[in-house]
């Protein structure tokens, strides 16, 4: 069983934690990743900074600017991944970002480099199923999961296209909007997760706007995973190089709430 599949056991909702690579600097990111693991994150989403993060809200936009301002290069991100894999043999690591930095040297180059760095999967915001050919085949050839996104606007007619060739898990973006701002109504999440589960055996992780332990717990009752990003990125933004202990503390609070919620279910 690969690392990603093991991260979503039937009896426990996974906590998927996002941070932007190189924020506040490439040298600090390893400590922040360790802090996520120490707090109980099951899957690490490592954001690849981009100058034009069109789907992101203010928190992650600011993180991208901090990271690029610190000089973070693609090579740094791959080094961060390689070193993470050396320290954490079993924790799944997913790269998340936009198409252009992934395609710059060719999809094949990126897929091979990511696989060699110990990355398990890739989420690309602006490569929808219609453009799968730009990135999907290269990732699959390299043995990486290409994690697909479903959203509130993904209707029944379109869902099969989204799920076709999806692997790893399905990331349900619970609000039509950008990262970190609104939170979705829980009933709409329940309904959407039900719809997705009827259509696929892949684990369903729910994210966008998840910020409090209570929200995480509510999602954990119905979904296989909870994705938290902007709230963690804001802690990094506030505490900078000293963020690690604060990150651990926050992630631990999410972990506890998620575990509690599943026990009640």
């Amino acid at each position, binding site marked *: 069983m690969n690392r990603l599949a093991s991260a979503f056991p039937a009896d426990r909702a996974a906590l998927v934690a996002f941070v932007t690579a190189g924020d506040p600097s490439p040298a600090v990111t390893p400590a922040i990743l360790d802090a996520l693991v120490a707090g109980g994150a099951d899957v690490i989403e490592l954001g690849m900074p*981009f100058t034009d993060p069109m789907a992101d809200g203010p928190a992650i936009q600011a993180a991208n600017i901090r990271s690029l301002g610190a000089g973070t290069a693609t090579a740094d991100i791959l080094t961060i991944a390689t070193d993470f894999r050396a320290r954490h043999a079993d924790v799944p690591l997913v790269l998340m970002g936009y198409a*252009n930095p992934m395609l710059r040297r060719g999809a094949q180059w990126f897929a091979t480099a990511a696989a060699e760095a110990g990355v398990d999967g890739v989420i690309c915001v602006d490569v*929808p199923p219609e*453009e799968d050919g730009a990135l999907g085949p290269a990732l699959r050839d390299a043995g990486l999961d290409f994690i697909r996104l479903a959203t509130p*606007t993904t*209707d029944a007619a*379109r869902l099969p296209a989204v799920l076709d060739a999806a692997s790893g898990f399905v990331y349900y973006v619970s609000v039509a909007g950008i990262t970190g701002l609104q939170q979705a109504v829980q009933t709409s999440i329940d309904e959407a997760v039900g719809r997705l589960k009827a259509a696929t055996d892949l684990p369903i992780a729910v994210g966008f706007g998840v910020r409090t332990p209570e929200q995480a717990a509510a999602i954990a009752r119905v979904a296989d995973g909870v994705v938290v990003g902007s709230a963690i990125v804001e802690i990094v933004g506030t505490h900078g190089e000293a963020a690690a202990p604060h990150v651990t503390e926050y992630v631990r609070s999410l972990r506890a709430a998620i575990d509690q919620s599943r026990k009640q279910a």
Partner: protein
Amino acid sequence: MNAPNSFRTQPPEQANSLRQQPDERGHFGAYGGRYVAETLMPLVLDLEREYRAAKADPAFQAQFDDLLEHYVGRPSPLYFAERLTEALRDGAEPGMGAEVWFKRDELNHTGAHKINNCVGQILLAMRMGKTRIIAETGAGQHGVATATVCARFGLPCVVYMGARDIERQQPNVFRMKLLGAEVRPVTSGAATLKDAMNEGLRDWVANVHDTFYLIGTAAGPHPYPELVRDFQSVIGREARAQMLARTGRLPDLLVAAIGGGSNAIGLFHPFLDDADVAMLGVEAAGHGLDREHAASLNGGAPGVLHGNKTYLLQDDDGQITEGHSISAGLDYPGIGPEHAWLNDIGRVEYTAITDTEALDAFQLVCRTEGIIPALEPSHAIAAVAKRARTMRADQIILANMCGRGDKDIFTVATALGVEM
């Protein structure tokens, strides 16, 4: 009756036509496509369906034609720039120095070609039942054109504009406000056009249920590059018919400035299958191609941004770099995907003109023709000036005068060191 403006009026289809792009998935060769977040994808597919239906609907067509004629003021004149032609012949070899003609889209309502596309898209928005319009703008020309059609049809309008551009383009900001639009400053990134486009996409993704994104150039996710081209192709169709009527022949060379490339594709597209008509797209070389510029084809590389694959200004890691041009309308790090394709297949030649060369051409047109051109077509005219002398006197260059220069007089004054 089919008006000459009709964007469906096509010559008979021919084999191996260059005018049948994009394919059904929105690809122009390797370029274009629909590189958008999943949230937008269903909407983009809806837009495509609705556009196909509109294209086939005579009522939509009739309304578009009527507005272009009576509201925009089309057809725009085709004009022989006699004194400019003579000025460029001065110093040329005997018998050399092509005739220079202008397609005068600067005479349109709102002063540029932008309005052609805005009329088409707002009709489409209303057809789709959308009740709110958003747009991005750099220099403010597309923002003004969008605010104009929104006022005309009574739809609320939000225009995203980089905070830096707002400072540089105060008159256009005030125009948009007079027209009832809300201008939202964008402070992210470099606070210019590409950041305004990012913010437009963020708004759209959060308001997909009621909002139509009125994109200003022939770029973005499919079907935008196609539909903007179709709406702008009125320029080339008119010019082709006018040139045949006036001279009995087609021009030898078409020249147009390129930021995103909508005025250029609008002029070029109806001529693409006329093998004897050469075409020259003119990018902004800014301070020079070895320094800061906005020439995506001449100084960029293929990549993915704002929903399409095309040539981009970017670094080795795929981070987008800032464009620079004295013309805010050319100051964009990408280019429409159809131009990327036309470049690769060699059908259109793309060159670049510096700020200084454009300023010289600006002044030349002012003095020889009594026309104050915008800085965008001043780039085209600068390229014309270089080419005309290398062509025979019986040859014809047709340049797109895509905008008037009233908006640019402060920029030009500053560049020339004149206190106003």
